[in-house]
């Protein structure tokens, strides 16, 4: 019997959540970091949303946050003109990397040896985390603020999206641009899937899929409302998108058919990401919350429990409860 999705709301932030990222799967499960305009990024257990800790130190809104694969290190980009690297187990600040303007994006290489940053000063920077006092390598070219910068192609190349309406692919060794994609409107988000080298770019109401190696277009899908972020399921059968109409949309990647849509957030959705095992996706919103949504609604996973009809009348039923109906304005 089809069931109604019960999103799990993670509270704690006091301002809009603007970015989120999952770690890889570790022996202790997987983890989620959220960037918030309140300046206090938080680490949570990925499958339950349980708060683990808050990284304290930034003096301004945090615009970008990421975890390394093992969830042992975190990096954040903030309006206080710094990018910080943190120990994600103790919560201690390890490095503070000064920039000349607001930093928007941070990304680790696979071995966590280098950090890529990008922001309002239009320059991509590569920091060697073993030599934090050394000057970073700098790559110029963008003519407007950089929104997102990611390593790709086994860290041999870099993808960057900026307010100059371009997405550029750079070669790390030569520091030269390899290819540029020009758009008519600002790109709102970018996600890179290493397995399969797929790049997901959102702009206007469009979710576009590219081959990350040559930046060749694979397909585009149009949504009913302006989209701020999209994420492709690890098995590449679904993708989810969220944007200005406060809703989350789930599409079939192959047929482009809209499968489900969910109301729940009380403000525009700024970021959405699938978990590394694909069992859930997390969304961050202007309303200051993160919500976790099931990919397969009704499945027992994390805090969600599949309850069979006979279990509902058993003595243990008082530990289980359905969601209270959402108040829809």
């Amino acid at each position, binding site marked *: 019997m089809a069931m109604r999705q019960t999103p799990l709301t*993670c509270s704690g932030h006091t301002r809009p959540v603007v970015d989120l990222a999952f770690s890889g799967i570790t022996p202790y499960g997987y983890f989620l970091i959220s960037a918030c305009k309140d300046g206090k990024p938080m680490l949570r257990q990925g499958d339950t*949303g349980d708060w683990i800790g808050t990284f304290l130190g930034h003096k301004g809104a945090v615009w970008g946050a990421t975890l390394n694969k093992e969830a042992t290190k975190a990096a954040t980009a903030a309006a206080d003109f710094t990018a910080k690297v943190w120990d994600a187990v103790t919560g201690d600040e390890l490095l503070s990397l000064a920039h000349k303007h607001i930093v928007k994006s941070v990304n680790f290489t696979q071995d966590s040896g280098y950090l890529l940053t990008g922001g309002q000063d239009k320059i991509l920077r590569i920091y060697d985390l073993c030599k934090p006092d050394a000057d970073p390598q700098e790559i110029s070219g963008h003519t407007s603020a950089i929104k997102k910068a990611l390593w790709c192609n086994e860290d041999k190349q870099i993808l960057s999206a900026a307010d100059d309406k371009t997405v550029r692919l750079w070669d790390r060794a030569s520091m030269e641009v390899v290819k540029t994609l020009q758009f008519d409107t600002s790109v709102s988000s970018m996600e890179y899937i290493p397995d399969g080298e797929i790049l997901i770019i959102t702009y206007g109401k469009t979710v576009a899929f590219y081959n990350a190696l040559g930046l060749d277009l694979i397909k585009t899908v149009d949504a009913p409302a302006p989209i701020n972020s999209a994420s492709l399921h690890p098995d590449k059968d679904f993708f989810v998108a969220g944007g200005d109409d406060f809703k989350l949309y789930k599409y079939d990647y192959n047929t482009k058919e809209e499968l489900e849509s969910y109301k729940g957030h009380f403000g525009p959705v700024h970021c959405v990401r699938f978990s590394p095992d694909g069992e859930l996706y997390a969304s961050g919103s202007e309303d200051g919350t993160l919500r976790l949504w*099931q990919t397969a609604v009704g499945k027992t996973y994390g805090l969600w429990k599949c309850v069979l009809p006979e279990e509902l009348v058993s003595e243990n039923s008082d530990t289980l409860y*359905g969601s209270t*109906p959402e108040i829809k304005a």
Partner: protein
Amino acid sequence: MWKSLRAQAMKPVCVLRMPRGPDGSSRGFDPTSERYLALCPTTISSSDSAVDSATFVEEQKARTVLRERYIRSLLAMVKKDVHFTMYERVKVNAVFGASDIDILNFQVSDLQTPLGVQKEALIRCPDIISYSFSIDAGLKD
């Protein structure tokens, strides 16, 4: 319209509980969690005993001295006024009572906070950046 009516009629998925939020009193990163204990030993690990045994013995002696000195410093702090510098620009004074065996929590009395004096409190050691007290100060009963 049909889609939303159908959705309302469907049973919602049950949840065991809501995700836990921040506890409001600390920055988290529980040092007693499995992950923390496995990845962050709370002591500086000593050299492998297979290394040159003379160096090893000397290192152990130094560790013993330092450990004893620290434990005696805790004893010297009992019933004295201690000044704690903590994260988030928190600076508080309190009368030290005792530490737990793992030096994870300090039991204090008369904790002076901006909200008033807390008669009895536990201060989590990972939240402390530094603390200081005067050895010659009088005891606070």
